[in-house]
């Protein structure tokens, strides 16, 4: 039962993040939503590793990959925000719709 409950929790984190990523206007807030989603994935992967296949290292490798994804998403997100902001003083997705600059 613990296994399922932890998965539900991970799903909860993922869906809160999904809501944020879909509903927020600010690019930075959207990134926060994505971070939460990846956080859910990390918990789920650790849970699968622990309860299903602790002898297979792949579960851990997924966690490593997710952590790297988080870092990459952050770095690129902020770089893009900085570039857009510098060019057009915009930090909202609605205003950045037209990417023609």
């Amino acid at each position: 039962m613990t296994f399922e409950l932890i998965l539900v929790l991970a799903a909860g984190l993922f869906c809160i993040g999904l809501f944020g990523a879909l509903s927020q206007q600010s690019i930075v807030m959207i990134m926060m939503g994505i971070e939460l989603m990846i956080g859910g994935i990390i918990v789920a992967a650790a849970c699968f590793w622990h309860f299903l296949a602790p002898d297979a290292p792949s579960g851990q490798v997924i966690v490593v990959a997710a952590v790297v994804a988080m870092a990459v998403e952050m770095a690129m997100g902020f770089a893009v925000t900085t570039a857009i902001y510098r060019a057009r003083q915009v930090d909202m997705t609605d205003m950045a719709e037209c990417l023609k600059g």
Partner: protein
Amino acid sequence: MDVTGLVLRAAAARPHVLLATLPGGTAARLEAERVLRLRDWPLAATPAQADVLLVAGPDCPDLRAAVNRLWQDLPAPRALVHAPGAGGVEPALETGQARLGSRADQRPRAEEPGRTTRGGDAGGPHHQEPRGGEDHGEGHAGNGGSHDDGDGDHHHAAEARHGDSQAGPQDHHDGPEGHDGGNGGTGRGHAGHEGHGGHEGHGGHEGHGGHGGGGMEMPGGLPMADQGEDRDGLTLDQLHVPLGPLLADWPAGLTVRVTLQGDVVREAEVEEPPWSDITGREAFWVQPWLRAAAGEPVGVGEAARRRAAAHLDSLARLLSVAGWPAEAIVAKRLRDDLLDGAPGASVAPRLERFARRVGRSRTLAWMTRGIGQVSTEEAREAGVSGPAARAGGDVTDRYRQWLADIRRDVGRLEGPSPLRPAVDESPRGCWRDDDPPSAALIALLPNLLTGAELAAARLIVASLDPDPDELAAARGTVGAHD
């Protein structure tokens, strides 16, 4: 004997002192720094860290509001004392400590109105200092309870956390309604301690470019911060911060209004010295020159002593700003010994050691390199004549020049020949009544500060170290001659 009283006295054993030097208070400041150093009472840098506010120097009506704001920001238990001259420092500090320790029976109770005023902030009979006492109550008439102060008094609502990548402007507005809040208490709700620099932003906030909503209700009724072009093209918010006039390690009375974006100074503007009344202000560092100019016989040795001490004082300030308190205290000690009349032979070895450590410090040179470049030609054109002009370079060159000058002067402490004020340089340059050397140094500041980071700006000011007292003295002598 209650426990509170015991604890109070234990706490008062080593009070932290916030030194607010008024224009003309150099002698009192030096004495206070000496006494505090020997007693091991730490010098606080902000009101939040202090127990005793020591106002050093002759009363200055123009700065009363600033002093008052500092006082309001001191957390209780606290004491305010005033030392108009060097002689008043020791008794003032004694009084301050006694007041801190005996507060047990003075703890204000809301139901005892008489006591409240005394224990609290406003100037009641509690402050016996001759001139500085009465004005401390101004501006917060509605002081109810003194210590349980104003939770409900947050009019200022520094809105602008709205920030920027480095130092989001925190505008503590002195909103128009800021000072009549019902029970402002110790006035902690009254925001900016402008006098202390760096906390109050104001001016130019209407409009807030593009962000927020024009018609929206602003927090605390305040508009948002302005934005503007900046160095990195990020259009950061602008924060208007006054540096001075009572900032620690800062020329007393000098006010520079800077516009910050992040911690980069976008614009700097030197405010006219605020004091209108210059009677009783002495320019401590140029005294020998003033006396010689007035016809008194003054020896070169005395002038050299004063000049070396002045440079050591400037160095101590620079080292303090540069974050080297261990050497700053050594410089202050050398300065005090020189002013005490110590013979050159007894000071020289310690001075050598100090000059070697500071002058040859690679780290310090690395930190100050390339900051505040003023070539000799530029300096001469601007009318600067002292060490700043002779050094001709950055902050590093200027402090090394000071060190060289000090070593030269310490060799001449016993010079018997009379001082010729027109030829012998005063600490900051050739003394002229109509154009004191500090005026040229101050005039250099706006250009040098623009584009510097806050830390670099502090270093630049400390490395030029203009003395606003000279301005008052010059005006005084010019007035007397006319």
